[in-house]
Every structure is written in C-alpha cells, then in structure tokens.
C-alpha cells in the first residue's frame, strides 16, 4: 500500500489563542472519577442475561495434548458451552501481531505455561471456573527450550516447524524469530586505535506491564450473525484484523468499542480474551463477559523480553569512542508477538545516544517455551540502554573521567548519524539533558534523622520493615541517558484517522471528535480536545467513544498517539477551517478585504485576522450547516533496515531523556532506598505539561521497578513461579522517590506543534541510572537487573 502523502501542517504565522488549548495543563476528564473509584473499567461492564467466560490454561510449558474430555464440564449445571480447538469455526485458527503463529486454543501442542486450552461459558464466574477444572486434558510433557543454548542446539525441539513468516527464510535456526545485524565502518581497524577496551555481559529479567485493570471484555452477539465487542485494548483495528478471520466473519460484522482501560504499557497490544469472548458469545447466542483475575492476567499477556547483552566498547585516552560491538539475545518465548520489531529497535538503538562510527551489532529474538514476550514501554530500547549505559560508566572509570563528562564528549546532537546511517535531523540535546540533571542540587543527606530520638525509617532502605537506623547505609549517585524511537518504524504504513464535526448548538459553535484512539490512561482524550480548541476556536468539544466505526488510529504505543492521533485531529481541523473560511468568503466576502487576502484564524468562536480583528461569528458563517470531515494523517515514511547491514532510514523521530539517581543502600543487607530520581527530557512541545510530567514520572518509576524489584521468575522448567502481586513486586509510594522533572521543548519541525513522543524515553534511562548509583554506593559490578539483595551482599 502506498502511503498517501500528508499535506504538511499549514503554518500560521501566529498560533491561535485558545483557552484550554495546546500547551495548557488542562485537567483530564477521567481523573476525579478514577481516584474516587467511579470510573467504569472494562471489568465493570454488565449485560442482562450475560454469561461468564473462563479460560483453561496449560500447566505445562511444552506438551502434546493427547486428548481433551469436556463431558464432565458440560454436565455442570449452569454451563452453556465448552470449546476447544476442534470447535473453531474456520480453517484459520491462528492469529498474531506480526506472524500468525498463535493458536486461538491449543492445537495438539502447548508451547508455554498458561497457554489457553479450552473455554467455558457459564451463568456464574465460579461455575465457569469449576467446570473448567473438570475438563480432563491428557498431556504428554515434551522437553523444554528455555535459553539460547537449549533453543539453538542442533537437536533442539523446533517450536514452529511450519513457519511461513517473512523472517523464516533468513534465520539460521528455526527457533530464531528474527535477527537483525547492523554494520557500519570498520570496527576492527577502529579497535586498534582504542586506548581502552571494555567488555561486559548484562542481563535483564522479565518485566511485566503490571497494569492494574486486568484483561476484560464483553462480547454481545448481534442479530446479523456478527458480534459487538466492548474491550480494554490498545489498538482496536489491529484487534479487529486478527479477530474477524478466526471467527469466520467479515470485519464489518465485528464491531468493536473501547471500554475503560486500566493501564496498558504494551501489554494490551496482543489479544487476550477478544477472540475467546466472541467465540463463546457466538456459540451460546448470549452476551459473554470475561474478566481475568490477576493470576490469569500474568498468563494472559506478553511481557518485556528478558535479554542477555554482550558489549564491547573502545575509547581513546581523550575519551572518544572508537567502536562498539554487541550481541543482544532477546527471549521471545513461545510465540512471535512483536518480537521482530523489538529486535529492530534493540539493534538500531543499541549504541545509545552516542556517536560511534564503527559498529558491529547483532540482535535476535528466540522462540523458547518461556512465556511469550512482546511490547512493553521502551520496546527493545530498555534492554539496550541498561547495557550501553553500564558500559559508559565502565569506560569512564577506566579512563578516569567523570561519567557525565565522558558521555558529553560522545553525545550525539542534531546532524549525528546513527549506526543505521540515519541522520538525526531534529534537535538531540543529549549533553544538555545530562547537564541539567547534573546541575540540580543534591537532596540533603541523612534525611531519616529526626529531631526526636527515633529515626524516620520511611526514609531508610528497608522502609517500614525497620531494618536499619542508619547502620550500613551508603549513598550513591548515578547518571544515564537514553534514546527511543517514536512511532512505528521500518517502513510500516503508520497512520491515524480523525473525524471532526463542527456545528452550532444552542447558538454556540461546538465540535465533536471521533477517533479509534485507545485512551489507556495517557490523557489522549484531553489532548484531542485541546487541539480542537486551538485549531477551531471553539470551547465546547465532545470526544466520542473510540470504536471501529471510524478509521484506524493506530496503536496507543510507541509514544505515538499525541503525535499521530493528535496530528490527525489537527489535520482534520485544518480542513474544517478551510471549509469554514470558504463558507465565510461566500457569505461575507464582500464585507471586508481581509476575507480575500489576510491569514485568518478561528478564535473564541469567531473568524479573526492575524491582528485580531473580528470578521464574523462562527455561528453566522455556519448558518445552521455542519461541517463533518474524516481524514487520515501519516508521519513521514520510513524504510526497512537492510537485512545484512541494518542500514536504512528506519525511524520517524527520536526521543531523549536523562536521569540522575540518588540512592541510599544498606550495604550489609543489600536493600535500596532511591532517594531522588531526577529526569530531564526533551518533549519538543508539551501539549499538556501536567500530562507530560505524569508520563515522565510514571515511566521513571517503572524503570526504577525494573532496577530493583520487578521480575517474573521463570524456572528452568519454563514455568512461571510468581504469577501474582504477592511476589511480583511493583514500587509502592514508599519506594517512589522525589521525582524532579525538567521539560525541554526543542521543536521537531517534522511533527505537529513540534512535539516529540514522550511516554517511553523516561523508562529507559531510569533503570541504568539507579543501578549506576547502587554501584557507586557498593562498588559491586551489578550486571543484572533487577538487582537483588543477594547481588549487593554477594551471597549466593
């Protein structure tokens, strides 16, 4: 499909003025509802006469399914349907984001712990659960592959023997999902010029998105044989593209509406209950609700790829990088999900925001029997950032340079070239971001000391658990900076659609916006309304529910939705403004010369000149007519990376953030208190400064979680050992430090309002900054995240 070129934003000499418009911290409409518990999440949906769906999942990581006996489950009173692979309605029984490799229900083999095997619909969730427990599945366990050695052994079980995806012909072992080299310059010759060379192997554990609202949806069968699906997701149209074929329905018979989303972070890019709920609804002829509990949720979505990263860097005595070599192995788990794109990101961003002309890079993702991994905030760039920033510290130490100064000497800037050959053609204030976090005053020492006798343990490592009153506590400070791409890359036709209607109601001009953009908590609906106020000069803006009656908005991921759907709304508003002005000229053209010549704006419900002179009221121009336009918006096209060299204009835009972490470590117990985690980030334009600060703080804390506690533990049997919030720990407010935020706004002229996607970059550098600070406090190498007390205390 050829990308329809997008008309560049018509540049006005002066930005329109609008109350509650672009650049203002407009309060979000869902904020109060959420903190008071009144917001309706997907799990709150209810339909008269509805049934409850339940998923039976595999207890094995790899097994043949010899037989499934559903008789006992069907016999349970209140059960309406029990479905297995044999009940699927068409010959297409697999789905997937990039490769159609994921069975809707296990097809003779289960490839990971928790894989869906059968479905039950019953009149009560408990009945469904009990019935599912009565399904007798006869498994024959198979050997598991759980790491690179077992996956790529010559005699390794091949997880997907009949691959036909477009990466399959290019990989040297069928258990490699995708491999992307990036080669540039002459690393061997450059290495010979290096005065110091440092190498390291780094490990990143499996992080979970840990969104608070578990997977939920309601499927309602329709009289036309189709289905209406209300669901919490990140990308309605991508879901639709995957759901309809396996239901055997045309896409227009599957109507999707977004329901309240309780966080996503990438974990809702893949399907969870969507197809299952629809299958049960179509089979029983009744509405079916499915809500995962937390245990199911841990198996119901993909996680962040665990990774092993080997790096070599060289530098001259002057502190300039000579070359970099790295090998990044990502564990994709049993199904591909978005592994190929994660590989592309990891490979292309593996050098970080530094100028290195000579590189030899390899990134790959494996198929294993571990839980499937896919999208999570940071998407391949997080793992790389932990490794290259650890290397930067190591190099600086080796050279006797201050770590910030060393980074400054190698920092990229506008005009620098990435290992992919792509020139960064927008501001890249890497050194400036580091300078800013470094310039902040340090938080006071020994904040646990109080006027009274007893220390405030909340300010100490261990917190309320009362493990130290200052004994063994050492402070450390660390820095890190990262680079993240924004939007979909590698030649993907990435677009968003917005429909905007302008009309007069009760004498006032009002606008209605309809997009399919998933509001997952990021504040997209707030931003859309701000853009309409700015562009059309109306105060009253209604945002319609997101659904598939309007064109695709693309994914709420890749830091792209303000850029893309914000861009689409703006783009559509520009078309509306032109229609308004055409109407105005037709109606009032003779009344004032400015109608023909001047640049005209819509402000405050009126058509005004640049100088602010009012030409007409919008209501009079429209005169009862409504203007209703739906348009697509595309960012500039990108290119795939060359399969051998990784060269190509692969990314749309880059986003940069830097952190300074101040930690206090109980060096005897290995417990950590992050005291402060300061972030400076360039967002191009803060469309909603408060929302931007929220993204930066949230991303920062998620990175802190990866640094010190968040990990899904998977045994050598490939089974998940901690699928609950009892033992998958996420930071509490006592683990959350002071989070100073410094927002830069250096416009990227390729993007609407000059904005830069902001949601992911702060997740990258947060983790290595915290670990760097722990290293500074303890002197330990700490090559693995999350850092555990065992690592700090050097106990086995």
């Amino acid at each position, binding site marked *: 499909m050829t990308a329809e070129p997008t008309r560049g934003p018509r540049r006005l000499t002066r930005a329109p003025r609008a109350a509650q418009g672009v650049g203002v911290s407009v309060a979000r409409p869902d904020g109060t509802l959420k903190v008071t518990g009144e917001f309706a999440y997907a799990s709150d949906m209810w339909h008269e006469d509805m049934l409850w769906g339940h998923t039976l999942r595999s207890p094995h990581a790899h097994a043949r399914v010899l037989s499934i006996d559903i008789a006992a489950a069907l016999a349970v009173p209140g059960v309406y349907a029990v479905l297995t692979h044999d009940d699927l309605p068409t010959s297409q029984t697999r789905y997937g984001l990039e490769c159609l490799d994921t069975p809707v229900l296990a097809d003779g083999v289960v490839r990971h712990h928790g894989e869906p095997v059968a479905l039950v619909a019953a009149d009560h969730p408990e009945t469904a*659960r009990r019935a599912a427990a009565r399904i007798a599945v006869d498994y024959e366990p198979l050997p598991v592959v759980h790491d690179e050695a077992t996956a790529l052994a010559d005699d390794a079980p091949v997880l997907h023997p009949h691959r036909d995806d477009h990466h399959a012909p290019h990989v040297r072992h069928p258990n490699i999902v995708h491999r992307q080299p990036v080669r540039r310059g002459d690393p061997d010759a450059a290495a010979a010029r290096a005065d110091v060379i440092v190498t390291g192997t780094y490990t990143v554990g499996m992080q979970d998105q840990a969104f608070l609202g578990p997977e939920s949806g309601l499927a309602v069968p329709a009289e036309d044989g189709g289905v209406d699906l209300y669901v919490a997701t990140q990308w309605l149209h991508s879901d639709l593209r995957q759901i309809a074929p396996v239901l055997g329905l045309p896409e227009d018979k599957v109507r999707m509406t977004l329901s309240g989303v309780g966080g996503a972070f990438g974990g809702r890019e893949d399907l969870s209950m969507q197809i299952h709920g629809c299958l049960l609804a179509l089979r029983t002829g009744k509405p079916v609700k499915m809500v995962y*509990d937390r*245990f199911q949720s841990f198996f119901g979505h993909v996680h962040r790829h665990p990774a092993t990263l080997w790096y070599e860097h060289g530098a001259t005595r002057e502190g300039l990088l000579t070359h970099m070599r790295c090998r990044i192995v990502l564990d994709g788990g049993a199904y591909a999900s978005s592994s190929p794109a994660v590989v592309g990101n990891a490979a292309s961003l593996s050098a970080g925001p530094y100028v290195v002309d000579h590189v030899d890079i390899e990134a790959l993702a494996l198929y294993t029997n571990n839980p499937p991994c896919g999208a999570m905030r940071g998407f391949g760039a997080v793992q790389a950032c932990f490794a290259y920033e650890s290397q930067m510290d190591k190099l600086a130490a080796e050279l006797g340079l201050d770590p910030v100064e060393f980074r400054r000497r190698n920092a990229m800037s506008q005009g620098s070239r990435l290992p992919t050959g792509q020139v960064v053609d927008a501001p890249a204030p890497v050194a400036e971001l580091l300078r800013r976090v470094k310039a902040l005053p340090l938080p006071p020492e020994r904040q646990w000391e109080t006027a009274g*006798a007893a220390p405030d343990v*909340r300010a100490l*490592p*261990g*917190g*309320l*658990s*009362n*493990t*130290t*009153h200052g*004994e*063994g506590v050492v402070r450390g400070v660390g820095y890190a900076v990262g680079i993240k791409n924004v939007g979909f890359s590698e030649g993907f036709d990435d677009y968003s659609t917005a429909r905007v209607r302008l009309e007069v109601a009760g004498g006032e001009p009002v606008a209605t916006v309809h997009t399919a953009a998933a509001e997952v908590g990021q504040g997209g609906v707030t931003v859309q309304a701000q853009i309409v106020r700015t562009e059309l000069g109306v105060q009253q803006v209604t945002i319609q529910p997101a659904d598939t009656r309007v064109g695709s908005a693309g994914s709420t991921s890749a830091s792209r939705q303000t850029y893309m759907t914000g861009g689409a709304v703006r783009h559509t508003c520009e078309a509306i403004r032109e229609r308004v002005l055409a109407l105005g000229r037709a109606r009032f053209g003779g009344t004032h010369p400015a109608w023909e010549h001047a640049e005209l704006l819509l402000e405050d419900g009126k058509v005004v000149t640049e100088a602010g002179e009012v030409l007409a009221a919008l209501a009079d121009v429209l005169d009862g007519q409504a203007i209703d336009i739906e348009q697509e918006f595309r960012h500039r096209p990108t290119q795939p990376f060359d399969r051998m060299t990784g060269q190509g204009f692969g990314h749309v835009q880059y986003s940069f953030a830097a952190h300074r972490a101040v930690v206090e470590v109980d060096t*005897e*117990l*290995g*417990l950590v*208190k992050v005291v402060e985690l300061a972030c400076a980030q360039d967002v191009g334009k803060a469309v909603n400064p408060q929302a931007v600060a929220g993204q930066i703080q949230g991303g920062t804390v998620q990175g802190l979680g990866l640094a*010190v*506690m968040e990990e899904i*533990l998977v045994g050598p049997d490939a089974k998940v*050992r*901690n699928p*609950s919030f*009892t*033992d998958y*720990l996420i*930071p*509490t*407010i*006592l*683990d959350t430090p002071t989070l100073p935020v410094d927002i830069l706004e250096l416009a990227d002229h390729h993007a609407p309002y000059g904005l830069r996607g902001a949601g992911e970059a702060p997740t990258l550098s947060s983790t290595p900054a915290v670990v760097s600070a722990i290293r500074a406090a303890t002197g330990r190498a700490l090559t693995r995240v999350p850092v*555990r*007390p*065992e690592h700090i*205390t050097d*106990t*086995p």
Partner: protein
Amino acid sequence: MDFLRPASWQEALAAKAEYPTAVPIAGGTDLMVEINFDHRRPDALLDLNRITELREWETGRQTVRLGASVPYSRIMEHLRAELPGLAQAAHTVASPQIRNRGGVGGNLGTASPAGDAHPALLASGARIEAVSVRGTRMIDVDDFYLGVKRNALAPDELIRAVHLPKATGPQAFAKVGTRNAMVIAVCAFGLALHPDRRTVRTGIGSAAPTPVRARVAEDFLTAALADGGHWDSGRPPAPSVAAEFARLVAGAANPIDDVRGTAAYRRHALGVLARRTLGWTWQAYREQDRSPACA
C-alpha cells in the same frame, strides 16, 4: 458454600463444634486471598465479625489479653508501650487497609512461617487462649506452630485471645523484604530483653518451616550479659558477643531458596538483624531508667 454468622462467642463455639470443618473468617485478609487463588474452597465459613469482644483487649497488671481480631492498626496506636515488639511488627504488616482488618488471631490461624506477628509473640513469650465447647486451654506459643501452615488448634477450637506479658524491657522487630513497604518477609527477627528475669528471647520468621526461636543464641546472650554484669552496668556487650549472637541466630534458621530469596541470604540477613536489634534494644535499655520500680 455455607456462611455461618454466630451472634455471640458461645454461638461461635457451638457452631465450630457442630461443623468442625467450617473455616473461621476474621479480617479475611489471608482467607479471601486463599479462596481467590483457589487454594482452598471451604464448605462453610464461620464469620467471627459479629463477636465484638474479639476486637477488644484488656490490660492487666502483668499481661495484655489481646482479642484475636484486634486489628494491627489498633495495636500500633494503643499498645506500643505495653507490647512494643508486636506493635513494631504490626507496623510492618501489609498496608494501612490490611492493617485495619487483619489481626493476630488470623496470623496465628494461618500459621505461615512468614507471618509477622510470630517472631514478636515468640520473643515476648505469648500464650494463646484456645477455646471450644469443651473448655479453655492456654497454649504456649512455643508449642503452637507444628509445621508449614499447621498449628496446634483442635478442629473444634477457636482462638479467643492472645496473652502477652507486658514488656519489662526494650523489644525490637525487623524484617527484610525487597520492597520498602507492603512486602512479605524474606526473613524477620524479633528480640525482647527481659530485664526482670535478666533473660532475652528471640523469634525468627520466614527462615524455617515454622516460626522458631534461636534458643542457643538466647542462652548464649543471656549468659554473656549476666557474666559481664551488663544488666547492672548498662555497658553494651562487646562486639565479639554481638557477632557470636548473630552467628548463632543465623545458625538457628533452617531456610530454603525460594522466589523471595536464597537460603544463604536469609541466614546472612538474620545475622545482620540480630546484631542490629541487639544494638537498638541495648541502647534503649541504657537510656531508660533501669530502677525496678519502673519495670
């Protein structure tokens, strides 16, 4: 699932005698999690929430009789002076929401090695008041924990209260977790000085199949304090004594490797906690007026 809601303690005892498999529910902060996880699906629940006396306590001359369902938050607020070790332990439990519902009776009912009340109960020398229609018996805390999540209650018994000696000296509780709040113990340690008897008692959590005391360590320290005349002089025990105490505490544990931590780390951390809690309690002992009238 049947739901029994006795209006009085007598009714509760009668119900438990009639339906010994009925599972009592107090705050529900353990039980509902187990039900939610499908770890157990009892035929019947016996709701204790209408029995108000379970949420009350009486402070006697030498002991506190703590109703089984007194929530942790009340212990923290009202019994810090009398039961400092338990109050500190209570403060480390979960979050404010859970502390408003959960109590020591439920902790004992579950008898998880990771329950935070246990080290404090062991260190203070508590006794559990177990009651049935057959009568009342007092179970020494040392005899209460039988195995992983198994306790000494008979099928028809309920916990009415826990009797704890009022502290006669400083007590401390510390627990290691990989999060700074709301975390299940990787390991925990309670220490109580008993200047009235010139002894010390300990409790170890999450580092053996049941909560345990470090008896050899207690005996060692008790002897060392006596031999060195520390109770009278107030002088802190020598670092070598503290180190040996720490070593013996670590040795008393019988930990395992699990998702929360390794056995080796648990032992290591217990040693650190033992040394630190000894330092804190002794410091407090020196600072408080040591005349017997004040005990």
